[in-house]
């Protein structure tokens, strides 16, 4: 076996090992979220609410800005193409469907992957390096219950909320440019959008956003728990965390889009 082969096999093994341990990490998180509260170990709701403020409420401005601009771009781009067929009027419905099914969940998740995944890894990774996490363990306090579950809950609750917000603001952006720049009649734009949207479009977007939330929270926290080697390790893990969540989000998006396409 050549050394390159050996190295690639080593990498495959490493990847599989990480995949196994992140799955165990997820199972542990679910145990503390869904099972332990019924065995007299209540959820730390106060801490979860503080995290919701941190990851959710404070992300509103940036999510709103990105969604508005994406709405504008979507309508402009589709109008440009549809103009060739004399069907500019369809821009409204196209933008609405594209936003709710795809763009709003994906872009919100990407914004949060950069903002939140990095923050989780940097904060928890530093706690790992300064032995704060070991200290929790030694005080018989589960670090998963104390640190991970509130962050997990915050993400799973807030990302779908932010996605709904993104849906609305994105469509407002489309309405803005569609009525003012392209000249679609306001009443027609609203009518078209409402007619084109089905509940299942919005639902499939929300299902995706829950999956993305799980990915961001798990990758962000897991990479922190495997930090090695001081501040350099924290920096490296933070980078790995952002890249991994971005790639996983896009892969998961592809998978779920395919599933929805086939079964809905």
């Amino acid at each position: 076996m050549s050394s390159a082969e050996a190295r690639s096999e080593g990498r495959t093994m490493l990847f599989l090992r990480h995949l196994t341990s992140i799955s165990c990490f997820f199972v542990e998180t679910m145990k503390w979220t869904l099972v332990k509260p019924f065995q007299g170990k209540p959820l730390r709701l106060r801490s979860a609410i503080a995290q919701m403020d941190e990851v959710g409420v404070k992300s509103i401005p940036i999510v709103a800005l990105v969604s508005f601009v994406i709405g504008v771009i979507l309508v402009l781009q589709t109008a440009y193409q549809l103009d060739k067929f004399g069907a500019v009027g369809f821009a409204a419905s196209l933008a609405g469907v594209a936003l709710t099914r795809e763009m709003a969940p994906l872009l919100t998740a990407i914004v949060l992957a950069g903002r939140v995944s990095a923050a989780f890894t940097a904060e928890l990774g530093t706690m790992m390096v300064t032995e704060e996490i070991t200290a929790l363990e030694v005080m018989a306090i589960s670090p998963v219950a104390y640190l991970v579950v509130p962050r997990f809950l915050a993400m799973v609750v807030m990302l779908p909320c932010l996605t709904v917000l993104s849906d609305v603001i994105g469509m407002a952006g489309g309405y803005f440019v569609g009525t003012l720049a392209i000249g679609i009649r306001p009443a027609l734009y609203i009518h078209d959008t409402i007619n084109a949207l089905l509940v299942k479009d919005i639902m499939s977007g929300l299902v995706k956003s829950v999956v993305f939330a799980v990915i961001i929270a798990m990758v962000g926290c897991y990479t922190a728990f495997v930090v090695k080697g001081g501040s350099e390790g924290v920096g490296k893990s933070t980078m790995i965390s952002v890249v991994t969540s971005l790639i996983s989000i896009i892969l998961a998006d592809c998978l779920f889009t395919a599933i929805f396409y086939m079964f809905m």
Partner: protein
Amino acid sequence: MRLALETLIEVKNLCKSFEGRPVLEGINLAVERGSVFVIMGGSGCGKTTLLRNLIGVIRPDSGQILVGGEDITLFDEKRMDGYRKRFGMLFQMGALLNSLSVRDNIALPLREHTRLDEKIIGVMVKMKLELVGLRDFEHLKPAQLSGGMQKRVALARALALDPEIVFYDEPTSGLDPVVTGVISQLILDLSKRMGITSVVITHDIGSAFMIADKMVVLFRGKVVAEGTPQQIRESPDPLVQQFIHGRPDGPIPLRQSSRDYLEDLLDI
């Protein structure tokens, strides 16, 4: 003035290696209830690994750790948590939670493991802080305290649940002589007045001789000397003598490479 010479912690033939490199090679020691037991040794001799085994953060490859007659290496997570509530631990850098105030840090184990009223917890936090002389600082964040104060707060947190054992990881490293003296005195007081068993890991010779009832010297994962401070001081072992007097020449090698220096240079 000890009442009974009962062994509380007993380590039997403990071995641990990391990636094939042995770190602990058959450690044996016994700690009596209510005494101060000091583990000394140079950097990289396995002190920290030994301590991590004692607090159940890592498990040994072989050997036993008996605490009150029960082998903690066989404990599952639930029983381990029960054991962990019986001891406190002072980490080298304090390991206070930076996001919480001093008060909340000390209250944390109380809030997690007791159903005490918030008012009573407040009183207990004040008592623990008074013990380490920092009652005025309960509303500050750990980052606003000096290193020595952080360690004292961490000690207060370690004592929050009134443990029977306290483990100290380098309690005096990086502190000025006065704070070193204060912490050493605190460890002594806790043991003599409250009967807390202390296990201290240190390479601070002065403080070690001041507080120890019994001490061991580790070298390369083995116990090379054991006894009272007097016995250690009079030990004929040149290794021990070099260590306690901090002499640069002696059996403890400065260089840790296995290859010949000349060979290594010529290789480039």
